[in-house]
């Protein structure tokens, strides 16, 4: 029988916080799907150890709830392969034999080796790269430039920045937030908030209100059942054709905003002439969305303005034609007069470290002011000139080629935080390239396969073991403090970068003066007082004096000072189309031999790239790598649920288990990335990239599937 009061043993077993149990509730945040949303985590801590993780009621991110991934915080932080001390390679490169060294020895060696490469080949022959985590990126970018190298790059060479390029080419803004609360129609294009960044503070994280909701996706995801008034199941990579057909219908129905177009849009006539070719019937042939549904969707949008379009970091732009498809979607915001208007898409500046709290800071100056004036072109500049013009980073998809060829100049050293070579297409090329470097250093939380190739490995602190200044919409600011004992002699990424700055003998007094000094520089003049936030003892502080962006205030930063449906920036390049032109994005392969379309990277609720593969609780939800196909596609091949299949492309093959799913459109093979034993990116062909952005065509690769 339940007897009260509970015994102490019972309370400790149930993890009830209190003086008697010695279990403390401490506030921190989850960094697993970093940087946004950075959900608040209530950490149940006893004797410095994490016992349990839950959301924080009232926190701007999560509001009391954590997602599938974040709830496994304890097993993530205490993953068995956490790095605990600095390591130095003693065996052959990649052999995986290391000895423990002191921090001084490790950092001195990195500084010495980077300086050696600088002296022999020039500073730009050392590249600095950030993997998926983002919070320290402004610091790493500044370090790279202060060192004298032009080659800072990041995982964003395949994520998010192509959408930034799309907005920049049309408006000069970096990104927008859909003002869903005030929208007439919400267009959820590749919208999967139930499995991916689902607790975020972004407006689209909110649930359906009075607006009409149209979901466009190749898979019937939970958003369809829970939110959609209309669902268009599209063939991946044909989004541009659908967007252009919607534009044609809106123009023919006269549901466009003539005043807005007159005042704020450039190139409408050329655009109009171009999209008139996209009849619903033609679009149906390309997209597989029935013409009637396209007309219906246009009627819904036209009858319910303004239009808010969801933000997606990768799904649309992970195609050879992804940049233009993304621009075709954004064009709908212009012609309906929804851009920068209440209920539309509101331009949103990068506040700092890839988080958006509704206000701008000096972060860009902090990142870029030491950019070497005289130096070679960045990696990828020749191959991807538009990327090079719009994004101040190397295009890391070209990194392996440059290391291997030494052209146009050699890259001999790479210093990286959190690199995973498996994030790239045909990734064994990058692995081979890393093997050939003179020097390779890795800072990471875990002993990853990439870390195993390093000369020096530095162990990083998790978000629960370090401090960080976070900003949230509101706006609010939060200076977190460590809530658990560190697993070993680990350090925060920014401390590592600042220590390196001191040892590299570079002229950057600001970076050398520490994290808080840099923060003060970044936030100067914004109304955020770093000392005050830090002194708030882990409480979130509202920034009452900080001015945030409001609809209608944006000033177009394009050559014409308007929303450019015809891009003057793109016009300069031979072979590029200034209009949102639709072209086929399939990989080059015989469609008879490779009749199916591989979509690499579809999200699962329990995985995040590779970092949760070795978290046993999460792995138990889907123990083995599986490919999702429509049941009829499997039936035709005599394959039943759970059977082993071979997925083959022109680049190679992998094996996985078959998972029949009626949610998947016919003809598609969905496979999550990041499994070492079934590395789907390894069979995405080399050279299958968007020429505008350099992004790999991860989600449109011709393939074939057979029973093993």
């Amino acid at each position: 029988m339940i007897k009260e009061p509970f015994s102490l043993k019972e309370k400790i077993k149930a993890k009830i916080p209190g003086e008697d149990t010695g279990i403390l509730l401490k506030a921190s945040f989850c960094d697993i799907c970093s940087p946004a949303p950075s959900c608040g985590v209530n950490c149940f801590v006893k004797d410095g150890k994490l016992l349990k993780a839950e959301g924080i009621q009232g926190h701007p991110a999560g509001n009391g709830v954590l997602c599938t991934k974040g709830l496994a915080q304890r097993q993530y932080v205490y993953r068995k392969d956490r790095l605990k001390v600095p390591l130095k390679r003693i065996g052959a490169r990649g052999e995986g034999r290391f000895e423990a060294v002191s921090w001084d020895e490790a950092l001195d060696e990195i500084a010495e080796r980077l300086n050696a490469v600088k002296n022999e080949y020039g500073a730009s022959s050392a590249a600095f790269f950030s993997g998926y985590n983002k919070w320290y990126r402004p610091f790493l970018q500044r370090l790279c430039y202060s060192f004298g190298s032009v080659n800072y790059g990041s995982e964003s060479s395949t994520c998010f920045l192509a959408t930034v390029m799309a907005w920049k080419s049309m408006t000069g803004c970096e990104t927008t937030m859909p003002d869903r609360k005030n929208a007439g129609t919400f267009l959820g294009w590749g919208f999967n908030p139930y499995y991916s960044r689902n607790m975020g503070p972004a407006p689209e994280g909110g649930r359906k209100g009075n607006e009409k909701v149209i979901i466009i996706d190749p898979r019937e995801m939970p958003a369809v059942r829970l939110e959609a008034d209309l669902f268009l199941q599209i063939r991946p990579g044909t989004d541009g054709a659908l967007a252009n057909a919607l534009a044609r219908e809106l123009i023919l129905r006269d549901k466009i905003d003539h005043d807005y177009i007159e005042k704020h849009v450039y190139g409408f006539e050329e655009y109009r002439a171009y999209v008139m070719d996209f009849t619903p019937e033609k679009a149906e042939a390309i997209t597989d969305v029935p013409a009637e549904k396209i007309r219906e969707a246009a009627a819904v949008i036209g009858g319910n303005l303004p239009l808010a379009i969801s933000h997606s970091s990768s799904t649309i732009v992970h195609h050879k034609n992804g940049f233009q498809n993304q621009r075709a979607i954004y064009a709908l915001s212009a012609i309906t007069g929804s851009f920068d208007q209440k209920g539309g898409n509101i331009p949103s500046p990068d506040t700092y470290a890839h988080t958006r709290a509704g206000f701008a800071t000096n972060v860009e100056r902090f990142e870029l002011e030491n950019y070497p004036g005289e130096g070679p072109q960045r990696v990828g500049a020749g191959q991807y000139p538009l990327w090079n013009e719009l994004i101040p980073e190397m295009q890391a998809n070209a990194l392996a080629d440059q290391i291997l060829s030494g052209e146009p100049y050699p890259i001999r050293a790479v210093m990286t935080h959190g690199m995973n070579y498996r994030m790239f297409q045909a990734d064994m090329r990058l692995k081979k390239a890393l093997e050939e470097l003179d020097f390779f250093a890795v800072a990471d939380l875990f002993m990853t396969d990439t870390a195993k190739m390093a000369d020096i490995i530095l162990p990083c602190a998790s978000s629960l073991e370090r401090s960080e200044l976070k900003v949230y919409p509101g706006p609010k600011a939060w200076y977190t403090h460590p809530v658990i004992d560190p697993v070993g002699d680990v350090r925060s990424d920014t401390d590592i970068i600042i220590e390196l700055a001191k040892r590299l003998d570079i002229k950057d007094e600001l970076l050398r003066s520490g994290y808080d000094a840099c923060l003060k520089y970044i936030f100067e003049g914004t109304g955020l007082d770093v000392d005050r936030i830090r002194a708030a003892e882990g409480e979130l502080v509202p920034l009452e004096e900080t001015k945030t962006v409001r609809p209608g205030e944006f000033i177009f930063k394009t050559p014409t000072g308007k929303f450019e449906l015809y891009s003057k920036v793109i016009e300069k390049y031979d072979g590029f189309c200034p209009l949102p032109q639709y072209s086929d994005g399939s990989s080059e392969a015989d469609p008879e031999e490779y009749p199916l379309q591989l979509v690499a990277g579809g999200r699962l609720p329990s995985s995040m790239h590779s970092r949760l593969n070795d978290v046993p609780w999460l792995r138990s939800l889907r123990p083995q790598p599986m490919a999702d196909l429509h049941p009829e596609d499997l039936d035709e091949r005599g394959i039943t649920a759970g059977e082993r299949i071979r997925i083959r492309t022109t680049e190679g093959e992998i094996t996985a288990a078959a998972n029949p799913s009626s949610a998947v459109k016919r003809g598609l093979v969905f496979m999550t990335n990041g499994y070492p034993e079934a590395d789907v990116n390894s069979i995405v062909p080399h050279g299958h990239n968007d020429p505008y952005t350099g992004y790999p065509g991860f989600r449109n690769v011709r393939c074939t599937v057979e029973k093993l």
Partner: protein
Amino acid sequence: MSIRILFDESLCTACGACAIACMDQNDIDTEGGQRPYRRVTKTEIGRIRCISSACMHCEEPACASACAAGCIYRDEKSGLVLYDNSDCAGCHACEAACPYDAVSFRMDVFGCEKMEKCDGCYARVFSGMKPSCVQNCPTGALKVRT
């Protein structure tokens, strides 16, 4: 205080947050083959259905009747089916009897299996908190009624 955990299938996405919350709360040993007290099932062929399921805390629990060691009982005050597995012989009769497949087994330090199951997180509820799975359900498909 009576405790009921309610489930609304129309809101469930089978994201598995409830299952992970259960694992974290109860230190479930998945590596040792143990499964959580609450789990999700997604039917993906034909109409897509998402279910989160755990012990239904039956009024006449078949598991209790099947247990020769008398480990399982219904607590009248809370309406929960609870257990004391000190005498559990690991015979799995309760598991065979349960129509909801809701019984879990943990290997103890002596290599013996001991039954475990959902206890409604009663200690949390009596302390003013929600059951772990309910607290962390992102869509509100799981609710607690006291």
